[in-house]
């Protein structure tokens, strides 16, 4: 028994990890595993779960038109705001890196402050308020572009776009900080060597010298970004409601909360969660494969 011997030999290491792993098991691993199990059952929290096989998944993909709609919304968030905010983080971090440390610190604070301020995104509800006192409506009417105020947060044509804007505003998180830090820690000699070798402008410098060196930070940023963009929900519920009008901006997570906390169909909600896990894992694999190609190692 290799593992038991190993535990005996490295007792101190295992004991030090134990408290964390115990909590991690209770609050992350068990929920993930029971989610997978429950997704094959019917469960209403009152009676014991009843095994139903693939029924939840079949219903999800073949019979539930709304799920297809929220899946589409989630992919719009994940594949529009995800890459957009990833590139935004990278480009802004790149630009910032050229300033002196004081100005850099101030600019970092400005770009990171929406993440820090957290719940303040509710101010967007006033900016996009449906009457003429909303900032956007007020100004568009003043400029003569609109005659009547638009009900941004209730109109199915607009609410998804409003939430995309707010999500972008909120999205410069830990990944952005890792990029800013990464740019400060590049090997200077490579840039000098590059200049001698005929690098002409900052774009060539970026592609041939910077990006390969920053592959680990780029991977970290991608992982954080995937979690954030597939998990969009708080902003949707706060601005659009639960559910939004005609499910126009609902995501897989809000749909899951809807089924889990309003309708108490836990089995079905768990199947929704499992589909989301798989989407996250696949995206992660694809991004890891792409970044590996650019890595220096």
């Amino acid at each position, binding site marked *: 028994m290799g593992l038991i011997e190993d535990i005996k030999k490295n007792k101190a290491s295992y004991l030090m*990890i134990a*408290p964390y792993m115990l909590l991690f098991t209770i609050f992350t691993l068990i929920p993930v595993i029971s989610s997978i199990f429950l997704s094959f059952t019917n469960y209403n929290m009152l009676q014991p779960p009843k095994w139903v096989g693939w029924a939840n998944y079949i219903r999800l993909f073949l019979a539930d038109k709304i799920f297809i709609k929220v899946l589409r919304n989630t992919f719009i968030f994940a594949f529009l705001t995800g890459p957009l905010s990833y590139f935004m983080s990278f480009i802004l971090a790149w630009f910032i890196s050229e300033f002196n440390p004081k100005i850099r610190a101030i600019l970092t604070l400005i770009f990171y402050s929406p993440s820090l301020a957290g719940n303040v995104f509710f101010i967007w509800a*006033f900016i996009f308020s449906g009457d003429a006192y909303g900032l956007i409506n007020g100004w568009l009417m003043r400029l003569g572009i609109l005659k009547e105020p638009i009900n941004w947060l209730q109109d199915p044509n607009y609410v998804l776009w409003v939430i995309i804007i707010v999500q972008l505003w909120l999205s410069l998180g830990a990944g952005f900080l890792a990029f800013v830090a990464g740019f400060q820690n590049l090997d200077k000699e490579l840039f000098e060597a590059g200049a001698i070798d005929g690098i002409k402008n900052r774009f060539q410098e970026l592609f041939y010298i910077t990006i390969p060196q920053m592959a*680990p930070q780029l991977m970290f940023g991608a992982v954080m970004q995937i979690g954030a963009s597939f998990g969009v929900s708080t902003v949707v519920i706060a601005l659009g409601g639960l559910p939004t009008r005609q499910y126009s901006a609902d995501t897989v997570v809000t749909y899951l909360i809807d089924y889990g906390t309003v309708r108490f169909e836990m089995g079905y909600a768990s199947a929704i969660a499992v589909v989301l896990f798989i989407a996250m894992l696949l995206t992660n694999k694809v991004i890891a494969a792409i970044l590996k190609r650019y890595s220096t190692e």
Partner: protein
Amino acid sequence: MAKLNAASHKKVNRSVYGNAVIFVILFIFGMFTALPLWYTVVSAFKPFDEIFIFPPRLYVRRPTLDNFVLMFQLATNMWVPFSRYLFNSLFICVVGTVGHILIASLAAYPLAKHSFAAKKAINEIIVLALLFTPQVTYIPLYIVMSRLHLIDTYWALILPAWQMTLGLYLMKQFMTQIPDSLLEAGKIDGANELLIWWKIVMPNVKPAWLTLTILLFQQLWNQTGGSFIFSENLKVLPTLLQQIAAGGIARAGVGAAVALFLMIPPIILFIISQSSVMETMVSAGIKG
């Protein structure tokens, strides 16, 4: 330890047009991030009649503290006094942050510096867990919490924070930079692993603690408690913000006052610890 070198290569190959474009882009994005926060600040100081001026203004003509006074009055007229919400938020932030730093760094040390059979598997699980947003396991988590009788206690918010993966991950990454010779010196002096962790490792990872403090404080300070907390006297400040914001445009001024009150602590904490955060983030990378 990683030193942040100011980029001295910046004078090479730089065109004036390029610089101009960069300034314009930074200005636009700066406006995009800063204006809503500025609007919050301005609205918090607007007297009642200025909130209803058409078109809405981005400045305030006669600043007033009325909204803050009203905030305290509104909060006093609710079930529980404002100070109670403040206490709840502070208690959860402090216990959550301190507990996480201790538990996560205790686990991070062997993961960074020892070699044992389960290490690789645990490291991989942790990187994988970084991907998951907590909302996804919301339902089974609720079931687990209710089985453990944690619903409607502070612990429902504190214990999940103690096992936040990002914190453990950053701590572990940072600890790999500690020179092995330092740890060996401790061993020669006869210290056990726990003592080495406390006396040698912990003082050397101060930037990482400050970073975890920022990340966790920000997360705990902003969370609302969702469906884990029912009792009004256990609820936290963001819940108060939600209740006030639900009052709509008429309460916009007070809502902004609460929001301003809420956003100041994490921003100040970040300003204090920014250089430590950057030093930690240098080592955040994941090798693909």
